[in-house]
């Protein structure tokens, strides 16, 4: 952990990372949010040196974008680099190189883990359990997602605060690739269960019996066709709008 900054400042920087996207924009993306997050550290490091403070702020107002839950790693490490810059122990350009070097790969890792694996897993678990009780479903969704989300924000920031090398070691050791795959498998199992339950409900509505397996095949083909469409960048909204038009035509008949 950094010894130059007070505990209050470190806590303040950690808390502020939750507002990283507070002024998200197309030009600088998370630039204002990142600068806001690191501001308490800069104020302590450059107190009484307004010109250096202004230069530091401008450094962080450059374009920045990464997966928000992974930003703690870069934020923590940036605080450490700023400490060295303030002590005239490092080139100010080092911070830009570090941030640009890491934000793309952290964005890719974070997008795959959080949006591509953890969120679908938590969502489908929540949807299934909400059939038992709505509050159970909501609790499952929030707990499954946030246990991992908040621990990564905490651990990532701590690793960053221990230095750039520690941040890189954390990313290597955290096993994001295997964690992503594990959650994708759980999401696939739960998604399959959801699809099986939905297909069987339709089969039962139409009387069950031997024809049920025909309904199963239709369900499999429907899921497969829709998955192919989504992979070809067709939006779920487009499919739903198509169904709305079909429904309206049925009503007008």
């Amino acid at each position, binding site marked *: 952990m950094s010894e130059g900054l007070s505990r209050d400042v470190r806590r303040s920087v950690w808390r502020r990372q*939750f507002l990283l*996207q*507070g*002024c*998200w*924009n*197309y030009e600088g993306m998370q630039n*204002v*949010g990142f600068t806001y997050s690191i*501001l308490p550290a*800069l104020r302590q490091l450059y107190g009484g040196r307004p010109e250096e403070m*202004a230069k530091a702020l*401008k450094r962080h107002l450059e374009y920045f*974008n990464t997966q928000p*839950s992974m930003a703690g790693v870069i934020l923590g490490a940036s605080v450490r680099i700023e400490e060295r810059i303030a002590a005239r122990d490092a080139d100010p350009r080092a911070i830009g190189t570090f941030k640009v070097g890491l934000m793309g790969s952290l964005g890719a890792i974070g*997008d795959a883990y959080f949006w591509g*694996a953890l*969120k*679908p*897993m938590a*969502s*489908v678990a929540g949807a299934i359990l*909400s*059939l038992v009780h*709505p509050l159970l479903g*909501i609790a499952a969704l*929030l707990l499954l997602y*946030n246990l991992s989300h908040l621990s990564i924000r905490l651990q990532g920031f701590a690793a960053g605060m221990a230095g750039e090398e520690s941040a890189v070691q954390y990313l290597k050791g955290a096993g994001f690739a295997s964690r992503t*795959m594990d959650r*994708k498998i759980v999401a*696939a*199992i739960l*998604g*399959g*269960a*959801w*699809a*099986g339950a*939905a*297909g069987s*409900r*339709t*089969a039962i*509505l139409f009387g069950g019996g031997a024809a049920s397996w025909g309904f*199963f095949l239709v*369900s499999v083909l*429907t*899921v*497969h066709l*829709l*998955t192919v469409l989504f*992979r070809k960048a067709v*939006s*779920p*909204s487009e499919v739903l709008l198509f*169904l*709305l038009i079909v*429904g309206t035509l049925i*009503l007008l*008949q």
Partner: protein
Amino acid sequence: MGWQFVLAAILGAIAYLDRTATFQLMLHRPLVVATAMGAVFGNVSAGAQVGAVLELLYLARLPVGASIPPDDTGAALFAGAAGAAASSSVGLDAGSFTALLLLSVPCAELGKVVDRLVRRVNGRIAALTVEAVERGDSQAVEHGLFAGLTLFALAGMALSLAFTGAGVAAGKFLLPRFGPESKADFAALMPILPLLGAASVFSCSRTDRTAPVFYLTMMMVFAAILFFRWAG
């Protein structure tokens, strides 16, 4: 009714802030939002029912980089309020359930347009922040961020009022205009909606390893439900 819309606007603003600008604790997910709207407008289970299906529908669109997925929070605000308004003592009928899920699509697309607009205005706020910092005003960063947050919150509040208002109107005035036969016809589309959700989950999690797992689980659950129904 007035206090219900005030509450819906406050909860909606919190959900929209959670969606992009702040915490991202998943308070903006359709299951949470639609259930909350169901509670506000008088029927929790109707809200949760539509929320569970909506939760999965839009997962296939990821908020990667600068891309903005459809606004499933807005769709949940509409569908949760509409579901509660349209439900009777026996719950929500299949035709109304299908209709309001499909009618929520324009809300999802409108919310996306507003989100894009807010981010464009934020671009101007960010530019002003940079100019102020160049003049030596370090507090401009905090002011810029809070201006962005306020904009996200106000847009969320306005959308929440519009979508819940439209939802209650659809539930109370539009859906009752259709008779039981029309609703039964419309309900023919219902089986595809949960499968659309499953496809959305599968398209996120699909790899060489997960594809057999998905279809095998689907078959086992399908067979188990039919078996227990036959045996019981």
